[in-house]
């Protein structure tokens, strides 16, 4: 087996993200590995999970505490060179998705992202055409950086081990991270760790049985459901586009909520679609939802038939009103 490096980063608070242990488990399944961590409190974080690692490296310091391309890429490059590994397993977070492809270029290697499975002979599985087909592939270029999709692998237990060897890095950058913009906690509707994904379709804004639209009530029902169940909220493209065109639709929806062909394909254990139509482009957003149910007025809807586990042929307004009483 070729030499493997597990490359991780810490969060701004100095902890390892949840998916870090999944990356370690994926590497451990193939054999011996080195461990490298960059970011705030990297040395301590590395030691907290280094039990199975042959060598441990860390890059830390104020400059590397925040997620930023120039500093992350230089730190990752330095760790990769210190290890000399041919294959680098890394966690597929936004931070590493931004930095590591450039590192592969610096090292004259290659980079694959969104890896969902790895075979013992280093054939990797990933999706193409927005989750519409899955490929199994390999490369001869080295180093080969593999960014593993969070949630796609089992976690390893966190076992402390050897202390990390600090790796010195100097880098200049013109970029300063000034902060984050996030909705207030009570308005937070995107929760990657939630068990349930609720997807709202454009049907919520259409005329109902009485010939009128009921958008304010739709907004209340959806938000109440999301807050009570602590689920994550997704939306179809058509509904998000209506918001973007300045119409008074569901004001809390943005492109960040969009699932599907031109949105995201989130990972949740369960999914409930309401007022959604459309076939293949929509299913793409549900690729990684295991248990799928849909509420839809059309019993023959192509999206639901054969793609959802249960289809409730009913009015979403009525069902959600009743659900609100029960939750």
């Amino acid at each position, binding site marked *: 087996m070729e030499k493997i490096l597990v490359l991780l980063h810490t969060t701004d608070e100095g902890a390892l993200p949840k998916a870090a242990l999944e990356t370690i488990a994926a590497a451990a399944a193939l054999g011996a590995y080195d461990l490298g961590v960059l970011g705030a409190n990297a040395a301590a974080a590395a030691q907290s999970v280094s039990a199975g690692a042959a060598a441990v490296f860390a890059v830390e310091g104020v400059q590397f505490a925040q997620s930023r391309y120039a500093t992350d890429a230089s730190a990752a490059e330095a760790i990769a060179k210190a290890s000399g590994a041919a294959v680098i397993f890394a966690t597929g977070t936004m931070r590493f998705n931004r930095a590591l492809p450039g590192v592969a270029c610096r090292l004259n290697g290659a980079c694959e992202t969104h890896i969902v499975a790895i075979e013992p002979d280093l054939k990797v599985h990933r999706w193409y055409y927005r989750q519409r087909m899955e490929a199994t592939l390999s490369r001869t270029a080295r180093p080969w950086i593999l960014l593993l999709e969070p949630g796609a692998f089992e976690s390893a237990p966190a076992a402390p081990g050897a202390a990390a060897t600090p790796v010195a890095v100097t880098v200049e950058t013109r970029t300063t991270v000034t902060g*984050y913009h996030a909705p207030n906690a009570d308005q937070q509707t995107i929760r990657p760790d939630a068990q349930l994904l609720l997807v709202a379709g454009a049907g919520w804004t259409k005329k109902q049985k009485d010939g009128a639209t009921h958008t304010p009530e739709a907004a209340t029902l959806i938000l109440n459901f999301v807050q009570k169940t602590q689920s994550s909220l997704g939306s179809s493209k058509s509904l998000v586009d209506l918001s973007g065109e300045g119409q008074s639709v569901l004001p809390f929806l943005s*492109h960040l909520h969009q699932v599907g062909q031109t949105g995201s394909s989130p990972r949740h254990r369960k999914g409930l679609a309401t007022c959604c139509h459309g076939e293949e482009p929509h299913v793409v957003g549900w690729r990684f939802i295991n248990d799928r149910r849909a509420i839809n007025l059309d019993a023959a809807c192509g999206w639901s038939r054969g793609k959802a586990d249960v289809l409730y042929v009913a009015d979403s307004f009525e069902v959600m009103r009743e659900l609100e009483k029960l939750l």
Partner: protein
Amino acid sequence: MAYQIIVCGGLAPDPLQTLEPVTTPTGPGLKNELMLPNVFDPWAGHALYEAANLAKNQPGSTIKVVSLGPKAKLQQVMMTVAQKLPFELIALDGPGGGFTDAVSVSKALADAIAAIPGFDKSHALIFGGWESATRGAGVVMQMVGERLGITEQFLAVDELTVESDGALVIKERVEGGKHQISKCAAAPAVLAWATGNLPEPPNHPQTGMANMRVMMPALQKAKPTALDAAAITYAQVALPAVTRQTRIVKDVPAAEIAAEIAAWIKQ
């Protein structure tokens, strides 16, 4: 501040088309790939609309689109895109699709950008989509930036504002529905766009005709570009098994359905 905005963007099959993988002598491809209608890649499209908005607000800025794909497909797609806004096309005639090697693509794009007459890196903003709707890897823009020696890079950008001193304030998507806000002192920079905030511009036939007058010669002169077909070995490409046994619950009162869903949520 006048920028040289260069938008990298490829082609993707129309999202409404059904796609099926097939094996070709050169590796995996799509069934009837040559017949499939194509569109400008959606995220590259957002990058292009943001480029137009920036150019409008920064007088003297120019927009060039660097696109790699089969020449005939490029021409077909550009007939539509050209009606949206004024830009200059730099066409590379080569293979498209998701199964091509991202490393080779990045090299081709970076070489084409570096060869643009009058290219001034100090005023360059390299735009593109954060991922494509084909390969969907999100790696090409970073590699293009590295090859051009630009290490101020941003991924999944939703907003760019230019301050009076020329500093770029950028909002990037991060986990959990949040945005990270960064300030980059000045160009050059690479911005790989997510959806941004702008709607698709309406078609403007006069702009389209003016664009196409310049684009047709550019397409005819499109540089033949070969990619490394041996870089990736595909063992298999397959469609997922999509059919589920859907249980249809019909003619049941809403209260009963709600009770069943509530129990399912709590499981």
